[in-house]
Each structure stands twice: as C-alpha cells, then as structure tokens.
C-alpha cells in the first residue's frame, strides 16, 4: 500500500520526475541563502534586491493561491522568501538610521 502511494506520488504529472516539482521547491533555496546571509554585515545588504524579492514573494503568494490547482510549495516558498527579505531590509534600515544618529551625536 505504501509502495503504490509512493508510486502515485512519483509518477504524478507534477511529481519529482518533473520540473513542476523542483522549480517551486528550489525557491526555498533563495530563503536559505538569505538565512545564511543573516551573519553578514548590514552594509552588504542590497536594497534593490531585497525589496524586489519581498514584493515578488508577496505577489506570488497571492498568485499561487488563486491558480488552479493551488500550488502550496510555491505559496510557502514565496511567503518564506518575503519574510526573510523583509527582515533583511529591516536590518539594513535599522543599521542605516542608527549609524546616522551616532554620527550626528559625535558632531
């Protein structure tokens, strides 16, 4: 019984033999790369890249929930990406504003 369920999954038209499975799954790779970058200094965060990916994640989260069939992998990976990119933007903004305050205080 387990074998036939596995076979049903394996041979599914959007299963692991197809790009329809791996492409949305790999979108998590961007989130993971960004998580790895949490240890980097905020000066190296790119405003254009992180904002573009945040907006992209939010729009695709909406998109994947209204298409037929709903694509839960794309939904989850888009939301994950939007969250981590928002956090990176917050890190950079906080760094920029706190540095400005320190520079003003010194003067």
């Amino acid at each position, binding site marked *: 019984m387990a074998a036939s369920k596995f076979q049903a999954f394996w041979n599914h038209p959007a299963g692991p033999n*197809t*790009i*329809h499975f*791996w*492409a949305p799954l*790999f*979108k998590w*790779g*961007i989130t*993971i*790369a*960004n998580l*790895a*970058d949490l240890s*980097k200094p905020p*000066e*190296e965060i*790119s405003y*254009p*890249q992180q*904002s*573009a*990916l945040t*907006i*992209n994640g939010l*729009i*695709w989260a*909406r*998109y994947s929930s*209204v*298409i037929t069939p709903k694509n839960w992998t794309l939904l989850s990976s888009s939301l994950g990406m939007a969250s981590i990119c928002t956090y990176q933007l917050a890190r950079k903004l906080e760094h920029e504003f706190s540095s400005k305050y320190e520079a003003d205080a010194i003067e």
Partner: protein
Amino acid sequence: MASFRAFLNSPVGPKTTHFWGPVANWGFVVAGLVDMQKPPEMISGNMTAAMCIYSALFMRFAWMVQPRNYLLLACHASNESVQLYQLSRWATAQGYLSQKKDKASSQ
C-alpha cells in the same frame, strides 16, 4: 482604445494577480541590473548562486508549463545572465578566477 480596454478587463489583465505575478519577476532583473553598478564587495555569493540555479530551473518550468509562458522564460533568461555576470564579478573579487595571475607569478 477598445483593445486596450479589452486588455485592462481581461481575465489575465492588470486587475488580476495573473498579470502582476510575472511582472513582479522583472523586479529582481532590474534590481540585478542596478546592483551591477555597485562594487563587487557588496555582492552576496550565497544569494547570487541561489538566483542562478533558481532562474535556470524556472526557464525550464516556463518552457514546460501549459500553456508555454514566453514572458516568464524571457524574464528568467535575463535574470540568469545578470546573476551569472554578478557571480563572475564576485568570484573575481574573491580571487577564485585569478588563474592567469597565479601562472604569471609562478613563472
């Protein structure tokens, strides 16, 4: 004018998420182009490598999806080029692509 109105009201037009999803993808292409002007020290190797794999997978996805999505294919092909270029800039700055220099210094 009539065809423009038909486009505005179409089921995959700008009033729907089906339009803004693929459009949002161009956001990170533009972000990549903007980031090409920055010094290579600011490039994140993690994110750029992840983007290269991501766009390669989604080029295949756009080709295989029914109906074939040429706009998505063009978007990811552009992103692939930009991210590969950024990756080469990053690798050069890190010293990974300096074989010629090493050969010259060893002679």
